């Protein structure tokens, strides 16, 4: 199984969720995060003093999937999240050793 972490632009969340849903993936966890990358933030003025807003609002999504679905999931996210502009974000895939559904105790493939 794979644990996919993707950082995307907040306003693409809806598209990414539908794309994953179309790919048969319903389970997804979302976090509001701040990101810094090539897109670097901007400077602000507060009471006459300039300061750097180093971080931009981003959305992190986490999806645990069966390995067979991982590539499909990654490309679904990639396509739905892409706006061709700097700051579109990244997709990271980690190995997932085990998964458990709390309610039923199911594990493995059935749990994700």
């Amino acid at each position: 199984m794979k644990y996919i972490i993707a950082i995307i632009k907040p306003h693409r969340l809806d598209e990414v969720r539908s794309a994953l849903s179309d790919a048969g993936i319903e389970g997804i966890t979302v976090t509001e995060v701040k990101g810094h990358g090539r897109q670097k933030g901007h400077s602000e003025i507060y009471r006459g003093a300039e300061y750097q807003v180093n971080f931009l609002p981003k959305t992190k999504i986490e999806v645990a999937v069966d390995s067979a679905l991982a590539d499909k999931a990654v490309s679904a996210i990639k396509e739905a999240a892409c706006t061709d502009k700097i700051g579109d974000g990244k997709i990271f895939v980690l190995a997932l050793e085990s998964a458990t559904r709390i309610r039923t105790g199911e594990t493995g493939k059935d749990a994700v």
Partner: protein
Amino acid sequence: MNRLYKYSLPAAVGALGIFTLTSPALAQDAAKATMTMDAKYVFNTLLFLIGGFLVMWMAAGFAMLEAGLVRSKNVSMQCTKNISLFAIAGLMFWITGYNLMYEGVDGGFMGSFGPKAIPDPAKDAGDYSASSDWFFQMVFCATTASIVSGTLAERIKIWPFLIFTALLTGFIYPIQGSWEWGTGWLDKMGFSDFAGSTLVHSAGGWAALAGALILGARIGKYGKDGRVHPMPGSSMPLATLGTFILWLGWFGFNGASQLAMGTISDAASVSKIFVNTNMAAAAGVMVAITLTQVLYKKIDITMALNGALAGLVSITAEPLMPSVVQAIFIGGIGGAIVVFVVPLLDKLKIDDVVGAIPVHLVAGIWGTMIVPWSNSDASFGVQAIGVAAIGAFVFFSSSIIWLALKATIGIRPTAEEERLGLDAVEIGIEAYPEFSKGGSPV
């Protein structure tokens, strides 16, 4: 009714009598002299001042209502617009507004140009202080500008908005205001708008509508499939606070529009206006919560808040004459207007962020047209002429200004800027900056 209050002659003569009682006959006359002219002057002035500060406070109400109904990323912008427009209204209504509205209109289409003379207190005689009158009329002008701000939220650049505000408060509002309250042609014709359902609220609504049409909807509000994507505001408690502020301020708005408090009947009239104003607002709330419960199986709090305001706007054209039952009915229909017009506008893809068009424009028309029901001096025909004339004038002149601004400095930020939020783009600081700031050294 025009808004240059004049005492009726008999009262003045009677009042004078008090100081000349030399014979029983005159003493009888004197019995009419129930208050000294000085006391009347002070009472009238006090009414303007109290009414004035209550209406001034409505500027804060609009600011909070709008801050609550826009998304976080545009809240600083909305606050900045609201405090700036109040400042501009104060300046412009002095530079050109007041005299355009009240000086030498005399049945015509506008008054004269030039700043309002604020008299030396020692010479500020008459039935009330001219300064207090200016202050009271000014806050009405500012209200008109506040209305526009909400509709156009989240997608208009600040400077074009402020330029529009200056022209609205310095020219458009006072010119149409002169037609009625400045004893212009509409007043002569018998049009009746006690405290401004048309002159203030619809006028603001028309200016907002023109802007909304020319500016277009917020990105993403209307899907390609015709679906409406709601964009819930950032803070319901702030929106509620704003509504309560407006409700409070409205007692000044309607009550002090009686323009006098120095006689029993004037004071009683102000009191009755308080009652009717409150009843109309209460009915607006009740109708809005009942209808949304029935239609959607839930109470929509934003509709409840808009319902209160629509009730208030509806009663504003004639808060004195209706019976309580009439006031409840007039305000209740206001509440219903909100519930039905808000989704209607969405169907027409007119994006009104805070519901100012249903509340101020549509309920304002309703309130004006229903005046003859309780006030036999008014006629439906003349009311319709007033509504149409002012609507046409404000909509047309506003459109020209919006189009000119669009063609020159531009009125809309880029899509990228709109997505990021106007706070980050045009205002130094976001409304709730702590999360996004990130690199806090502490």
